Each structure stands twice: as structure tokens, then as C-alpha cells.
């Protein structure tokens, strides 16, 4: 490599950070559920696929954009309530690993159902945001990525307000802190879990639309879950801030590694590189970036 092109470096870095935001979008859905019910919800990717597929199929059948959004919203609410009733409630008080395996099964059901109902072909999704690059002081930035970042920022702001300053948020935090104590003071766990899963469904909808517009709506959309997992390991499963910072770190280092180290490894490293970063980081600092340090990583 002759000479170090700083502008190019910045461009790669910014591109990486912005794609990291997309990872964070998925990761936030996990964090929400993990914080309040201690479950690592592997089905988050399947929910994302289900939401995007439902929305696209409705739009393709001539349903107006806003109405399709509302219907999909409702479907996700129903899905959240159904999951609470049929999966979570019977498994109350089971070890977290059992619940995790249940969400694995859940992801198989949702993926299968989504494609059985709507078919397996690839759908294009146009959100009406043109993806022309924007030039900011000599660096080209994708408009779509900026839009996604703005959406993510809004979502984090809303969630922060919700968790900090509303009664529902207070209840969420109480449940996250100590389920038994929350029950003892009269909080209704089933209702709270149904709310949380609904909220996670909505985040899945937002993330699904953005990812769907980027990749096309198809089965591989549910695999973004695999991109979000190292982000979670890095940021800590229970921290929204961690999900954001983790996503940015992973996104940036992944892109930089691909551009500058890609030749060394022969390319195609994106399938595992994020995991390597997360693992290397954890070996030095087992509590993750923002995970609760008191709790053993179990």
C-alpha cells in the first residue's frame, strides 16, 4: 500500500459506523427482552423477517403504506401476546437456558409460518428514501444510512424516556431487577411480558423495514440475528447503550478489517470476524462494555 489515504479511511470508518447502527437496531430488540425477562430471544430475527414480510406482502397486494404499517403493527402485538401466553407463561421459573432453547423453537415456527403464509420469493422494499451518496466535507455518506441512524437514535431516545420517566418503564425496571419482588408489590408479570414482547415486535418491525429495504425481504433477513449476537456479547446483554456502542464498534472494525486486512485473510471474513472481536474483548474484560458488573456472566 503506497501512502495512507486518510479521506478513504474516514469514508470506510463512517460507512462501518453506519452499518453498525443497523446491527444495533436488531440488538436493541434483544436487550429489551433480556432486561425484563432474562431471556435471550433468538427469535428476534424471525420476528424481524415476519414483520417485514407481512408488511411487504400487504403493500404488494395494494394496501396503502400507512394502513399496511398499522396492520403489521397489530399483527406484531398479537404475536407478542400469543408468545407470552403459549410459550413464556408455561415456562415461568425455568432456567434461562431452557427459555433460550424455547426461543430457538419459536424462531423455527415463526420463520416457517412467515414463509408458508407469504411465500419464499424475494420481495423488494422501497421506503421512498433514495440512496444517493451525500458529500459531507469530502466524504461520501449514504443518505439511507443516515436515515437509519436517525431512526435508531429516535428509538433509543424513546426507549430511554420510556424506561426512565414513565410508570410502565418503572415496572419494566422493577421486573428486570427482581421478579419476585416485582410480583410481591403487585406488578402483573404476564401483562408486563406481553408488553415487552410487543415492544420487541415493534422494534423488529422497524429493523425489518430498514434491513428489508437494504437487502430485500427474504429468508436471509432472519440471519441478521447472527450479526447482532456479537454486538450483544460486546455490549452486554442488558444495556441499550451497550447495544449501540457495541454495534458501532463491531460495524467499524468489521469494515476496516475487510478493507485493510481482507487481503491477508483472503476475503469473506465478515461471517466470523465480529465474533472474534467480541471474544477477544471478553477475554480481557469479561463483564462486557456496559453489562452489569456485579452479576456473573451466566
Amino acid at each position: 500500500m503506497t501512502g495512507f489515504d486518510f479521506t478513504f479511511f474516514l469514508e470506510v470508518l463512517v460507512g462501518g459506523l453506519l452499518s453498525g447502527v443497523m446491527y444495533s437496531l436488531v440488538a436493541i430488540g434483544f436487550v429489551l427482552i433480556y432486561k425484563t425477562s432474562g431471556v435471550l430471544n433468538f427469535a428476534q430475527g424471525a420476528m424481524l423477517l415476519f414483520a417485514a414480510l407481512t408488511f411487504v406482502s400487504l403493500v404488494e397486494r395494494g394496501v396503502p403504506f400507512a394502513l399496511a404499517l398499522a396492520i403489521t403493527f397489530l399483527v406484531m402485538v398479537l404475536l407478542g401476546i400469543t408468545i407470552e401466553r403459549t410459550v413464556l407463561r408455561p415456562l415461568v421459573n425455568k432456567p434461562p437456558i431452557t427459555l433460550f432453547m424455547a426461543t430457538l423453537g419459536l424462531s423455527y415456527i415463526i420463520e416457517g409460518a412467515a414463509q408458508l403464509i407469504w411465500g419464499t420469493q424475494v420481495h423488494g422494499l422501497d421506503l421512498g428514501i433514495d440512496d444517493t451518496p451525500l458529500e459531507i466535507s469530502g466524504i461520501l455518506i449514504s443518505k439511507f444510512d443516515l436515515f437509519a441512524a436517525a431512526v435508531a437514535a429516535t428509538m433509543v431516545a424513546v426507549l430511554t424516556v420510556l424506561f426512565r420517566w414513565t410508570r410502565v418503564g418503572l415496572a419494566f425496571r422493577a421486573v428486570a431487577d427482581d421478579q419476585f419482588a416485582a410480583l410481591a408489590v403487585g406488578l402483573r408479570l404476564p401483562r408486563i411480558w406481553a408488553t415487552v414482547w410487543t415492544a420487541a415486535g415493534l422494534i423488529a418491525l422497524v429493523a425489518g423495514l430498514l434491513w428489508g429495504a437494504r437487502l430485500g425481504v427474504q429468508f436471509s433477513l432472519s440471519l441478521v440475528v447472527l450479526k447482532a449476537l456479537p454486538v450483544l456479547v460486546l455490549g452486554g446483554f442488558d444495556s441499550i447503550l451497550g447495544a449501540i456502542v457495541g454495534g458501532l464498534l463491531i460495524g467499524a472494525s468489521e469494515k476496516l478489517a475487510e478493507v485493510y486486512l481482507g487481503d491477508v485473510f483472503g476475503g469473506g471474513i465478515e461471517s466470523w470476524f465480529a465474533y472474534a472481536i467480541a471474544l477477544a474483548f471478553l477475554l480481557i474484560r469479561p463483564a462486557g462494555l456496559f453489562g452489569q458488573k456485579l452479576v456473573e456472566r451466566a
Partner: protein
Amino acid sequence: MANVAAPSTSNSFSWQVPAWLAPLAVVVAAFGVVPFVASPYVIEAILLPFLALSLAAVGLNILTGYAGQLSLGSAAFMAVGAFAAYNFNLRVDGLPLIVTIILAGATAAAIGIVFGLPSLRLKGFYLAVSTLAAQFFVQWALTKFGWFSNNSPSGVIDAPPLAIAGVTFDGAVGRYLFALSVVTVLTAFAYRLVRSQAGRNFIAVRDNELAARVLGVPVLRTKLLAFAISSFIIGIAGVLWAFAYLRTVEPHGFNLDRSFQILFIIIIGGLATIRGAFFGAALIVVFPLILSRLGSAVFGTVFDSGVLDMSQRIVIGALIIIFLIAEPDGLAALWDRLIKRAHGRTEP
């Protein structure tokens, strides 16, 4: 399909007759009767994948069921075993097949220890996610570097014939007998292992790590041992999968879905039971065939392969959840209850 269920119980269960009699009977039947009554189709499509997956599930059960370390990377260790066996066979002239298989298992065990290292500091979900690293890295490395597949342009290579001391195990029955022998030996080994001191250490670490440490169980060494032995068995299962069942060695068959499949086998069959692996594998292998027959009989042409694929996913997912809720100890526990009822023994 009555003959299908025969080898699924090649293990011990509590009977009123001596405990070793039942597994012995199953093994004798699997060796002596099945080869004569099973059609080549049944052997090729059901028994061979069943044997390979059962063995992989026995391996994963040692790690996840007994030692309590959740792994989502089993298929990677199968791939390591299969490719290691292929390369040892290719590059070392005249290496006996048994040595090749043992070396393949040892290679998988070594890789298993490397990817088991995070378990020394991570637990639960964090560890499960880190085992995904094994899954992706191994698959990437095997596709990326042509050396592993002897620079075959398609990445798909034919497995060499199975021959021990001049006897070639070819044809469906030959490969079945070969796979069955390997599975029998390793299952017996696993059965002895979980009842040895090492096996009790696994269980102690799973149930309460702190208590295990206090009792003097070397926790770190125990965890790595669990990873090594589990990967050794899973690696050999990979050899069976590639050499005896598929007859080709390729990285794509050892994907994440295969890892989940093996995990599902031990959930459905029963965690921390050896025979559960066989029950679960039987269900996972036979069930899609039944579903496709049933589907086309009931729905006719509407039930094409796409619909079949999706309904399979749905039913398997539902089975997992149902088992976790209704029978967390899996088919093995269900079987025990049936046996007890058949003997008219009621629980106190």
C-alpha cells in the same frame, strides 16, 4: 417401518431383568437381524443418517447435557472430523482406517479445546454465542482454503472406500455395519465415561460450579475435558456422516442448521441421558419422511417441497417448545414411564 425403531434403543434402560441385557439385545438385533430385513433404501435414507446423528448427539450430550456447557457449534466439529479424516487418508500413505478415524477425532478434540477456552471465563448465553464463532470460522476456513479439500474445484470431494485389514465395507449393508460398530464402541465408551469420576465431575460443574470447586473438582480442567471428549465423538460422527452416509465430503452440509438439529435431538431425546440421543435422532430422521408421506397423502399436489420444508420447520419448532414445557426430560423419560407402566409398577 417397524424395523426402523430397532437400533434406536441400543442402550441401557432399567428393566427388571439385568440392566445390561436390554442394550445387549438391541445391539445383537442391530448387528444380526437388521442387515437381513432392512431394504437398502431404509439403510441409506434412515439408518445411516440416524447412526451419524445419534453419535453426534451423544457427543453434544456429554458437553451440554452432562457438563452443562451449551454449544451451538456441533456441526463445525463434525466438519473438522470429516475433513481431518479425508486429509489424513489422502496425505498419509497406507494409514489404517481405524487410525485415520482416531486421528480425525483427536483433531476435532484439539479444535474443540481451542474453542472451549472461552468457557473458562464465560457462561451460559455468552458461551453459547462464542461457540457460534467456531461454527462460522470453521466453515469459512474449510471453504476458503483449497488445501483442505485438495483443491477440488467444486469443494465437494468423494470419500474414499471404507476398508479395514483388507475387508472393504461397501454397499449399504457394509457401510451400515461399519457405522454401527463405530457407534456401538463410542456409545459404550460414553456410557462408561459418564459413570466414572470424570462424568461425576461434569455433573458437579453443571449443577453448581462453586460447590464443585469447593469439593475439589478441577473446574477448568473438567470443562476443557468435556469440550475435548465431546468434540472427539462429534468429530467421528462427522466422519460417519461424510464417509458412510453421504459418501462425499463438503463443508456446506455442516452448517448452523445442522448444529441446531443436533441440539434439538438432545432436547427432544432428553438431556443427560445416553439413550435420549438415539430416541431424539430417530424422531428427527424419521419424522420428515412421515410428514412428507402424510402431507402428500392428505393435501395432494399442494404439498410441494417448499411447503414441506416450511411445515417441517414449524412442526420441529413446535415439538421443541412442547417438549420443553411438557416433558423437559425428553423421550427418554417418557420411555421410562412407559416401561414402568408396562410392568405394572406404580410410583409411590
